[in-house]
């Protein structure tokens, strides 16, 4: 075998090894956590609009911190501590948090009412999840697209209990993402050493 053939084979081996973990498959526990938060949080504008803002303030920060912990625990279990990827995730969701606060700001300052602003939260969430699906974790893409569809329904038709149904649909897509990731994880989980 010529040196160039040998180098080609070596590079093919390296490329295959890298491709085996090219995209983070996501953390099932985080998907299940947010499925629950979304299910409750999206129903609140329909069922108890007065507590929706407080719920999202607490669940947003608390869920974010819990997601960070679950992500770290998953990294230890899977044997890959990717600091750069962790920073990308953190920055993505931090920007999302800032966007949500930006949407809430006119309401907090009394320059807009919640009813007129609520749909914008759905649009920001749809963008965040879709972009996370494109750049970070593919299973989130479907949740993002469900939210885009929910936004369109809210803006065009505004049927009764639209937020509740949007929450149910999004929660189902997140549970599905969690289950499919869990199956993929079981097939590739390392032992300990």
């Amino acid at each position, binding site marked *: 075998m010529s040196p160039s053939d040998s180098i080609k084979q070596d590079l093919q081996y*390296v490329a295959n090894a890298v491709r085996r973990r090219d995209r983070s498959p996501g953390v099932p526990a985080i998907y299940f956590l947010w499925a629950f938060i979304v299910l409750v949080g999206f129903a609140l504008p329909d069922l108890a609009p007065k507590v929706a803002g407080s719920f999202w303030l607490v669940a947003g920060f608390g869920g974010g911190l819990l997601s960070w912990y679950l992500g770290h625990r998953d990294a230890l*279990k899977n*044997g*890959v*501590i*990717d600091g750069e990827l962790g920073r990308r995730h953190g920055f993505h969701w931090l920007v999302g948090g800032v966007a949500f606060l930006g949407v809430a700001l006119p309401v907090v300052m009394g320059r807009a009412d919640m009813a007129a602003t609520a749909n914008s939260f759905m649009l920001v969430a749809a963008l965040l999840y879709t972009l996370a699906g494109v750049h970070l974790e593919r299973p989130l893409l479907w949740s993002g697209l469900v939210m885009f569809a929910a936004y369109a329904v809210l803006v065009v038709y505004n049927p009764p209990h639209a937020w509740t149904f949007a929450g149910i649909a999004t929660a189902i897509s997140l549970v599905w993402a969690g289950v499919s990731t869990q199956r993929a994880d079981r097939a590739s989980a*390392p032992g*300990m*050493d």
Partner: protein
Amino acid sequence: MLEGFDATLEHRHRLAIAVLLARHGEISFARFKLQLDLTDGNLGAQMKRLEDDGYIAVRKDFVDRKPVTWYRLAPAGRKALDRHMKALRSLIDAPPAGA
């Protein structure tokens, strides 16, 4: 050995280990075994060579009360990998002999 190539990284398994560490940060022994489809003995030997050459740093830890060995690329390993990849690129970019 080809010009500019690093003797340690000329081995495909050690090159893959260095590339994966450069890409992901810290990786456990068990994950490497799965990722590279190597036996304990073979992987251990490659790791020892990289460690002896100062290319990787080792950290022992416990996860769920079980021992885990973590590896990350040391500065010397990163420099060697950069040099090796540069040499590889030069070889790939070079016109074929007789052209």
